[in-house]
């Protein structure tokens, strides 16, 4: 099942880009960057006729693993299929092959390594932020819950059973 998902994710349909004429000046470069070369809708519509939806079995297994209800399985199957097509499209884009996959995160790639002082002063430099609810007792988290008991969140058995 997992292999099938991976095959779906990693089947690449390459679309080679071509090299055009040289830019003459900065304005031309700016103009080029400012002009969309493709539309998202157009991009996503390609190959929809060959879109392969993940199997019902796979969708149900993923829903169970995520603790989500099964009743919307069919609509989620279609959405997941659409996302897989999108991922498939992303894989067709050119990337630098030498990029460290560890940098696959929404944070700066180059930063100063941590020094001894950063580590030993860590606890002193940490200030609890009330706006993040970090100070003990500064907010009552269970108030947000529909069901609560003696300061605890309450988990119903029906949820437990789907574990």
């Amino acid at each position, binding site marked *: 099942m997992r292999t099938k998902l991976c095959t779906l994710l990693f089947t690449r349909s390459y679309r080679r880009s071509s090299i055009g004429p040289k830019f003459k000046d900065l304005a031309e470069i700016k103009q080029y960057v400012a002009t969309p070369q493709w539309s998202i809708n157009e991009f996503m519509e390609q190959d929809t006729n060959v879109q392969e939806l993940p199997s019902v079995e796979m969708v149900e297994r993923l829903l169970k693993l995520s603790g989500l209800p099964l009743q919307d399985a069919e609509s989620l199957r279609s959405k997941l299929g659409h996302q897989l097509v999108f991922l498939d499209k992303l894989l067709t884009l050119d990337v630098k092959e030498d990029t460290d996959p560890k940098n696959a995160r929404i944070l700066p790639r180059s930063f100063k390594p941590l020094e001894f002082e950063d580590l030993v002063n860590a606890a002193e430099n940490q200030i609890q932020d009330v706006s993040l609810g970090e100070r003990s*007792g500064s907010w009552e988290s269970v108030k947000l819950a529909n069901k609560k008991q003696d300061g605890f969140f309450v*988990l119903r058995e029906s949820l437990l059973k789907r574990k």
Partner: protein
Amino acid sequence: MLKFSRNYGFKAVKRDFQLLPEFKLKCGLEIHTQLNTRHKLFSYSTNDAFASANLPNHHASFFDVSLPGTQPKLNLEAILYATRLGLALKSNINLNSQFDRKHYFYGDQPLGFQITQHFSPFARGGSVELTKVLNGIDQEQIQIDITQLQIEQDTGKSVYKDSEKVSLIDLNRSNVPLIEMVTEPCFSDLKQIRSFIKKYQNLVRHLGISTGDLETGAMRVDVNLSVNNHCRVELKNLPNTSSIMNAIKFEYERQVDIIRNGLAKTLLAEPETRGWDGTSTVKLRSKETSIDYRYMPDAELPLVRLSADAVARVKASLPVLPDETIKLLMEKPYRLSLKDAKILTLNASGHGQQYTQKELLDFYLQAFNSALENNGEKANQRLLTNWIIHELLGDLNRLGLPLREAIAVVPPTKFAELVTLIQEEKISNASGKLLLFHILEQTRDGSLTQPADLHGIIEKFDLGARSVVDDEELLKVCSEILSSVTDPMMLSGITSGKRKNSLKYLVGQGMRLSQGRVKAKLFEDTFKKLLNANW
């Protein structure tokens, strides 16, 4: 099916358990240790999962309860602690580790995933040495290899209310930093496992990174076990050392039975996870029901990039490790017994002590050096050790007085002086005890804040030993004691020599009346004289 259950599921562990040479046990351990950082791993909420058991969800930030839109921020103190542990275990610290998401759904894990280190853990390799002398294993020496260390967040806690068909969720523990340490399958008997757990517990306490308590769940041990290289079984939910040992014994016997009955190819063909219900191991998961964790890098956390210099400086700042200290204390000039060396070096428990191990050890070493300076080779090391371990620590516990406060009034030099007074019989043992307790009590009550004047107090309370005792007075005191004895059989027994031990009771009475200032031998001789005991 009934037969199967009886034979391979519910047989109690035999009392006379033993490993059989033709069935080789092989074990590895996975130990989760909560770090006692001030704050949690990915938020700065207070890391105090136990002290507020009566206040559920009290130490839970927006991130800890997984409110949408919240993001993790890494607590670098946890990185410092993990570096300390990795270096103490001689592991290779990864200068470029990363955090990943391990997805699974459970009520006490509201994020829907646990942030852990799967693809590039914090440290790899390393080892722990166990020896017959220091750790009490049967072999002279073995080495337990470490596979890896990874930093991860703890989950919340579920309180199951079966009657109400609900679980109550407390997220005080959610996001508390943990280190998962995995060993290679190097263990071949139970003593090795018990010794390793004890040693690892001592190590994390010594490094000051965890309480290391199994009972509170600050340390949790899973065991990977196989017999004769069949598929391994992972044992979970083992809350204390006896559960760990009993679960291993049970599982070993279960697997031996399976192999003996020729069923290993079917019943031990695939790895499985089993829990411990207090009397037997029970199947939790098999390969078919194993969870697909869908690991992926956590895109919201930066890589953990450490400078080589930072690691080198953490290494330089590590305390001397317990084994080295114990060896030092057992050699000249200290020559302590293993038991005493361990008391001075290892934390008996992670909390509730009136001293840190370093404070106690430093106190001992300074007092020892002071006694050596004052008395040279005449210094009675054994007496000094006994007085520190038994009298001083006993008094501190009784009075609830921290050692660092006691040191202000009885610094190590003063303590060595007190022991010298006892050694030289300038005060009796009993008077010494009274004197020390008095000083420490005054310290606790705040009426003594400067180093105590031992001689002044001895004089004030007339605690000095009586070198010259008036014979008549002694006879009078002893006669009074004898006349108060209501059991004539005891006295005749002492006279005949049939109840020699009863003499000690009389001597004790005498010591009590004289507040220990008269030597016990003098009382003993006088009582024997009065009772015509010629033995």
